[in-house]
């Protein structure tokens, strides 16, 4: 019965949120930096999806006799690396890898963080325990946490994803918990509770939607951090396994060739910078557009 009584309320919500969506989009599109970021992200997505059609070599095809060709060489407009692999092809396939790593680790991290945050925020009894665990994770510098996890699981891209996901959990949990705490006290939630709506229903239908804004901003910014962290792990030799065209691994490998073939490190370096920058400005723009007073750091 209680749920029927709530129908009108629920029915109203999407409409309200749609207009908010429009409003946010309009604000976002006014922000030149954010638009630039969106374009970069879009380009990366296009590269990732169309990879096989826009390159003429596979990213792992070696040709030792054509090693270290510079930018603008015939057949390899971005040159080749020390194994004669086409840099353009590696760059394009690398876009795929970095999106894949970013998205999966953020999604897993969010799943964990949201669950913990919701539980901690909604159930006072669980709050203490969960937040202590979150504090525990928080007290490790992220890169150290990732190193320990990789030491335990072994070096592979999947384990990097797991490590970075776990690293995202505490930040996300804190943000979600904070939003839950503020939403929980609002009258309509209190009303629903008194009407006997189930906890799960309240959490999923009413509390979670109200946390979406900070979560979206967090996720966008987190994409940037994930891509950077993957590259840092690759620099320490703990990232993707060769010959995977991962940008961070490409930079790390290219640093040894800084003098003979600077393009090997500059090309992927610029790619990472652009993409991370793009996610950061879009996140920043989203925050301004959604709620300028949103206050958090991950």
């Amino acid at each position, binding site marked *: 019965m209680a749920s029927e009584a709530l129908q009108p309320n629920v029915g109203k919500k999407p409409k309200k949120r749609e207009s908010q969506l429009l409003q946010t989009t309009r604000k976002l599109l006014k922000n030149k930096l954010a638009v630039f970021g969106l374009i970069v992200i879009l380009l990366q997505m296009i590269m990732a999806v169309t990879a096989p059609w826009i390159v003429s070599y596979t990213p792992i095809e070696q040709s030792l006799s054509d090693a270290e060709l510079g930018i603008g060489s015939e057949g390899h407009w971005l040159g080749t690396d020390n194994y004669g692999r086409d840099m353009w092809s590696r760059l394009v396939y690398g876009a795929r890898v970095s999106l894949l790593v970013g998205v999966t680790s953020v999604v897993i991290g969010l799943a964990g963080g949201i669950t913990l945050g919701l539980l901690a925020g909604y159930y006072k009894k669980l709050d203490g325990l969960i937040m*202590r665990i979150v504090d525990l994770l*928080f007290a490790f510098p992220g890169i*150290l946490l990732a190193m*320990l996890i990789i030491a335990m699981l072994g070096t592979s891209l999947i384990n990097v994803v797991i490590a970075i996901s776990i690293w995202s959990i505490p930040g996300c949990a804190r943000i979600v918990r904070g939003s839950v705490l503020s939403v929980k006290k609002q009258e309509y939630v209190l009303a629903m509770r008194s009407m006997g709506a189930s906890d799960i229903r309240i959490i999923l239908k009413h509390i979670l939607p109200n946390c979406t804004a900070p979560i979206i901003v967090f996720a966008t910014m987190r994409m940037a951090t994930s891509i950077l962290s993957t*590259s*840092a792990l690759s*620099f320490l030799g703990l990232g993707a396994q060769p010959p995977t065209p991962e940008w961070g691994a490409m930079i790390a490998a290219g640093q040894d060739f800084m003098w003979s073939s600077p393009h090997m*490190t500059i090309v992927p370096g610029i790619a990472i910078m652009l993409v991370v920058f793009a996610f950061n400005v879009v996140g920043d723009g989203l925050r301004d557009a959604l709620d300028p007073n949103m206050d958090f750091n991950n």
Partner: protein
Amino acid sequence: MVSLIVRRFFQLILLLIGISFLVFMSMHIAPGDPASIIGGPTASASDLEAIRESLGLNKPVLVQYVDYLSGILQGDLGYSFQTNQSVADAIMTRFPNTLNLAIASMIVAIIIGVTAGIISAVKQNSWFDVSSTTIALAGISIPNFWLGTMLILLFSVTLQWLPVGGLNAPFYTVEGIKQLILPAITLGTGSAAMIARMSRSTMLEVIRADYIRTAKAKGVRQRGVIWIHALRNAMIPVITVIGVNFGALLGGTIITEQVFAINGVGRLMIDAIAARDFPVVQATVLLVAALFVLVNLIVDIIYALIDPRISYD
């Protein structure tokens, strides 16, 4: 205030025990045997067994953990598997370097961040604002190992202004400062960008706030208004960033120390993880975690002092 400190202190101890357990177990679960690293590729099976026994690695893991914990309670951090030297000594010789690096990069971050943030806020939407916001965002987008190598190339190899690496002169000497500049910039860039963003947005809020308008209306000169009223308020986010970022900063020292050949705790930590030098990994991780928690406690205290509205129930 006192009860806050006492409570946090107990939390800290519990947290450290939790962390020590996690790290201890993860190192023992991780593949890789310290004995085979010490023995090297030539060690025979009996050599390895002898090494394991001398390290106490043949006891059950839980017994080892309890031994370790009771050692710590007696102030004994144990001995490195690799060098057989006291872990406390190993950390004490390196910790000053890491601390210098962390503080220097925080100073760099605060100077650049606060200046840029305030100017951007005062001259909102000016070319300075737009470009500093862009640069700030670019700053947190650069992989810092890459930035480090680029800085070495430019300032040390090409221009020969600053030394390439190492950190052994005391920080108060000219040589020491020169050695710190590049690593501090490398490590501080990310935090600088964050501080710039935070202080810009709080400054904007403060400037728009009523009391500033009132002050302006009363005819106090604009510059005075900004520096006196606004700065104190802008300090709060800066302190937050320091607290939150301190962990990331300590993590960042791992890579910065690697690139600039600085003998610090970060490097001790990666070397120890790679060599499965359990006692060293334990102690360094505990140290870093304790530092992080302590810094955040201090941040909370400063908070409470600056802004009496904040209370900790």
